[in-house]
């Protein structure tokens, strides 16, 4: 029976080097000395596996290689990758839900996030309100901004109650 090349995708991260070009772009150098300026770092599954399956793409968007786990990278490389990922995936983390009003299929939120007070509107649909597992929630507001509640049970009681009343 033909087997899928399941292991072919994860290149051993040992021997690769990451650095910044003078222009601030990411420079990836493979063990064979081949280097790629302007390397982009993306998550294969940013919502379900944010710290796994990290892909390095060349400037044309072609995959150079993929690592299974961020921890496979050397510490200084990992810090660079994390910095790149933070730039690509701008997601506010909701710390507290101040109020949530539901009107005709639209939800009006007032929240306290890691970036301060945020007021936003979300349509009541599976696409805008995505449960990532039983406790984690991703919201995409009408302007396309992403906000997340990494763990509902970690919220204060009032916030959790508001979410339970309106979303569960």
């Amino acid at each position, binding site marked *: *029976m*033909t*087997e*899928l*090349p*399941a*292991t*072919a*995708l*994860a290149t051993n991260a040992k021997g690769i080097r990451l650095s910044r070009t003078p222009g601030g772009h990411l420079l990836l150098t493979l063990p064979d000395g081949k280097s790629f300026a302007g390397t982009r770092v*993306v*998550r*294969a*599954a*940013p*919502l*379900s*596996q944010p710290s*796994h*399956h990290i*892909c390095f*793409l060349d400037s044309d*968007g*072609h*995959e150079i290689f*993929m690592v*299974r786990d961020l921890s496979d990278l050397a510490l200084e490389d990992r810090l660079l990758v994390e910095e790149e990922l933070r730039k690509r*995936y701008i997601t506010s983390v909701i710390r507290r839900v101040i109020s949530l009003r539901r009107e005709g299929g639209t939800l009006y939120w007032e929240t306290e996030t890691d970036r301060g007070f945020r007021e936003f509107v979300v349509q009541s649909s*599976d*696409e805008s309100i*995505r449960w990532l597992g039983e406790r984690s929630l991703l919201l995409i507001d009408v302007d396309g901004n992403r906000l997340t509640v990494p763990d509902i049970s970690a919220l204060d009681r009032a916030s959790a109650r508001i979410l339970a009343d309106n979303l569960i």
Partner: protein
Amino acid sequence: MSDFLEPAPAVRCQSCRRLLPEKNGVCPKCLDRWATVRALFQYLAPYRLPVLSLVAVLAASIAAELAAPLAIRQILDRIVAPGMALRALAWLVGILLAARLAMWLCETARGRLSVWLGHRVTADIRYTLFERVVRFPMRSIDGLSTATLLSRFVNDIARLEEFLGSGAPLLVMSALLLAGILGVLLYLSPSLTAAILLPVPLISLWTWFLWKRLRTAQDKQSSSLASLSVQVSESLSGIRVVKAFCQEDGEYQRFLQCNDRVRRTSAEAEQESFVFFTVIYFLMNTGLFLIWFIGGRQVLQSTLTVGSLLAAVSYLWMLYWPLQWFGQVSNSLNQAMTGAVQFFELTDSPVEERSVPGLPMRSIQGLVCFENVTFGYNANRPVLNEINFQVEPGEVIGIIGRSGTGKTTLMNLLCRFYETDRGAILIDGVDIRDYRLDEVRKQVAIVPQETFLFNGTIEENIRYGRSDATFEEIVAAARMANAHQFILGRVDGYDSLVGPGGDRLSGGERQRIAIARAILANPRILILDEATSSLDVESELAVQRALARVARNRTTFIIAHRLSTIRNVDRLLVVDRGRVVETGTYDELLARMGLLWEFANAYAETRDLQ
């Protein structure tokens, strides 16, 4: 055989010869309601305690309802009687209050219990129906339109839910209430009871007659609303076509017609409802006049107390409503029973037994042999005639032919979506009917022309090919299908939602996800049914590269319209009018100047025109 199809004959009921509303043999007039009710009640069996509680609550509610007028009677009779003690009055008012409170509590409990039960039972019914329908053989599914099946799931089950949740409890309650009221009235005054019952036949008749008209008017109203919804939806979804052909005014006129119909049918329904209830009130008042006259005379003659008269008036109001409910519930019962019969008809239909004992198919080579295969979707009109060919393991076969010549049917038989009428299909020398069905389906994967993706993430759609696959295997399959790169280009990568039917992806992207899904299943035999026919050149190239990679080491069938798709296959089968008319390599067949040669010329002309 005639080229023209005969008009489909109207289906009539075997017993009463009425025309049937659907071709399922169910006559709403003749169906055995009690047998259906008995079958339906089997679904209540797991909920014995809630059912018994509901009956008890209904009985308690009725007892409380009947007690209230009797308490009022006592109060009135004792107030007019000289020397009534305040203490006794307080007691009676207390009883009245307790009766009202008990009624309220029972009503609340009844509402909760009946809704809970109704939803539970209909959820079970829906589950049973879905579980059966997905396991129907394709032949059965072909005989049922999607609209019919949707109607079973939505309309019929909604009717059952309405009946079980409110109709049936109301029916039981009405029956108990009627019996109770008649009993108390006979106890109070037999002659007054006879007077009260005088308008009953009229009310029943009126309800029976007019309820049908009211339902008709309401049906017309809902049908006109549905038409309006379809019209608006069509106009808006086809807005580019509307604008391109300057048909805004035309669409506006169509909308006006639909809107006007909604206005007329809504007004008609309201009017019927108004007439219905006005007459009911009038007839009830007729009874009231009779009771006041006859009862008043009995009070004057001192054969009846004032309290008993007022209690009888209260019971009168209580008596007529259940009668009216019977009319309504009878209609709801009719509809629910029709839905239930159709439901049982579906659930009693045979299903595919995927795991019936058969030969295991763990490791096969992929040798495929069609031996004298004849098949027709309609037994009298074969689509395939005496098909014979053999495909070696790992061979890539192109199947080509005009539309409707049976190419897809050949492959449907290989997947065992249908059984052959005559002849046999062998895999590795064994008739596929001797293998377990689920194992055949695991070894034969198909990428259909109309790719269907489920509303979920890209990862979930690829994983559909094998639920226990690791993420690495999913990525590997996507890479082989040339899908990995475009997936990474999306912000959410493999977590991206594809939308209903995959409508957030382009045709080429959908095809590549479907190919990845098939690859993940890792079948020994792969069927690609015109997998690139609807793609643009760039997408076709990407998909073809993927297919070339996927076809390696698998027995592969590629059905194609475009000759470019099958130029490099190992061998071609040319199908025409249900027969394999040519077989050989592309160059061999061209040299023979047969049907493939004709296709090639036509194809070249088309390319020149482009």
